[in-house]
């Protein structure tokens, strides 16, 4: 079974974000970039399914040359192949555009793929829209924010997280599944894996090669401004005997903040 797993290079979650007000973009200098945390669950799940059922895992990223680093990581974890779809544009925050590229890529290069795995969102754009849009463009089913996945022949059953409950989703393959924390515990790459990954060539596919005319990928998102949120002011800090501070908390919430 051919499994595609889509990954994105993102700043790690401990990063402090700075904004270039002139270009309305995130300052990349000084940021530590990683494989998206949710994408990592998707990669691990792909490897586990391959381990149980056989087949091939292909890691794919849409981005610039810098994304080769995270594709190497996927190979080191155990992916069989990796492909970079080279996008000349920096972050557009436009899920539709990315989804169009991915859907066209799947149709052109991997029409027989049975399972398309994603992280439930990229960490940064936080859009949570590419997996569902890809599923729509390909006319296949989807299960998003998945914490459990069982593949059996041409079907799969996924448990997806909703507010205070889980939905059991029955899928006919091919299908799109996006991974949530809790799906699995991603493996660390081994030294042997890292050495092997260095030897695997990573083909680069261009946007033109996928037959896009430039205007087709015109972003639908027109950025007006990027800014930092207003800083919160530190409030009052008290110390003292526990019973007294407990009383002060409730008094603050009841009389000042008027919340309870």
């Amino acid at each position, binding site marked *: 079974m051919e499994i595609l797993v889509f990954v994105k290079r993102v700043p790690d979650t401990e990063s402090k974000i700075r904004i270039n007000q002139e270009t309305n973009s995130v300052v990349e200098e000084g940021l530590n970039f990683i494989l998206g945390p949710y994408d990592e669950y998707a990669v691990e799940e792909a490897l586990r399914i391959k381990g149980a059922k056989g087949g091939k895992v292909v890691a794919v990223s849409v981005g610039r040359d810098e994304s080769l680093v995270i594709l190497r990581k996927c190979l080191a974890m155990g992916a069989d192949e990796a492909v970079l779809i080279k996008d000349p544009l920096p972050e557009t925050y436009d899920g539709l555009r990315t989804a169009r590229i991915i859907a066209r890529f799947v149709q052109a290069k991997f029409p027989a793929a049975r399972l398309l795995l994603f992280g439930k969102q990229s960490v940064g754009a936080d859009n949570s829209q590419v997996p569902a849009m*890809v599923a729509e463009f390909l006319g296949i089913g989807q299960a998003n924010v998945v914490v459990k996945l069982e593949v059996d022949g041409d079907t799969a059953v996924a448990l*997806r997280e909703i507010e205070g409950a889980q939905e*059991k989703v029955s899928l006919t393959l091919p299908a799109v599944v996006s991974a949530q*924390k809790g799906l699995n515990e991603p493996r660390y790459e081994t030294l042997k894996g890292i050495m092997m990954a260095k030897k695997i060539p990573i083909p680069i596919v261009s946007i033109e090669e996928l037959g896009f005319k430039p205007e087709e990928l015109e972003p639908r998102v027109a950025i007006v401004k990027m*800014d930092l949120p207003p800083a919160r002011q530190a409030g009052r*800090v008290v110390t003292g005997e*526990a019973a007294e501070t*407990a009383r002060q908390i409730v008094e603050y*919430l009841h009389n000042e903040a008027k919340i309870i």
Partner: protein
Amino acid sequence: MILTYIETRDKKIKKSSLEVLSEARRIAVDLKTEAAAVLLGTGMEALAADLSSYGASKVHLFDSAPLDRYSTQDYAAALAGLVKKLSPAAVFFSATAMGKDLAPRLAARLGVGLAADCTRISVQDGSLEFTRPIFAGKALLAFRLTSSPQVVSLRPNIFPAVPAAAAGEIIREAVEIPSAAARAEVTEVLQESGGEIDVSEADVVISGGRGMKGPENFELLREISALIPRSAVGASRSAVDSNWIGHQHQVGQTGKTISPNLYLAFGISGAIQHIAGMSSSKVIVAVNKDPDAPIFKVADFGVVGDLFQVIPPLKEELKKLRS
């Protein structure tokens, strides 16, 4: 027209859908148009009255047995048909689990962009401008969509639900469910034990971090939660990664980004990825032993002290308030 998708659970309208409808009505006034609602499922007619009291001029009703249980593909097909028929200026969703599943599917079907998880919408020169948090709230992105209709999802717990009387005329819609070969179907909904409300929907979140010292002590937070209506128990990443509590409780950049009225943090130092996920809470109260904990930089009210000493009298004070 602005069309609002109304989400139901157990035949009840979700509060976040009323928030969205209220905002849709506010925007519709600015755009000099009307706010309409769409409901899918069975036995939904009784709910239409609730929507008229939140400003829906019309309620488009798909009452059909195959729509009784949520299916992304069928719901997207029904909504796309309605959008073609009505040509609304915008379609609004709540950015709930269902909204995040459905809105992008509809947007792709219509070939338009999606403004996801917005926390502010304004009308500028007759068109919509959106603001949404990126990097879990470490930055804000203001943008417009260049495609039409504007498909938008709004973050729950941000926009107020404001009653406003309107006609709420029921219009019955028919749907043809296309047969797709590769389908996904929800076959069962598994309720979490205790029917706790989700941290993303709670008015008050009582959260614990590494300072809780072990899974058994999260019981203390559940006891506080039992004393506060519409509250839920949250956790920091380190508590979740130590398996003290399930990840669905995690608040922060790899958990949930939330905006409750009150965030009560116990034994949470305030890592940057955690602060990102909760700093849009209206009020933050923190209890921590370490006076230098970064959480105190964002807390409206902080207590430097031992949470295990503070919680028992805090529970007593809360009980006093209730009685």
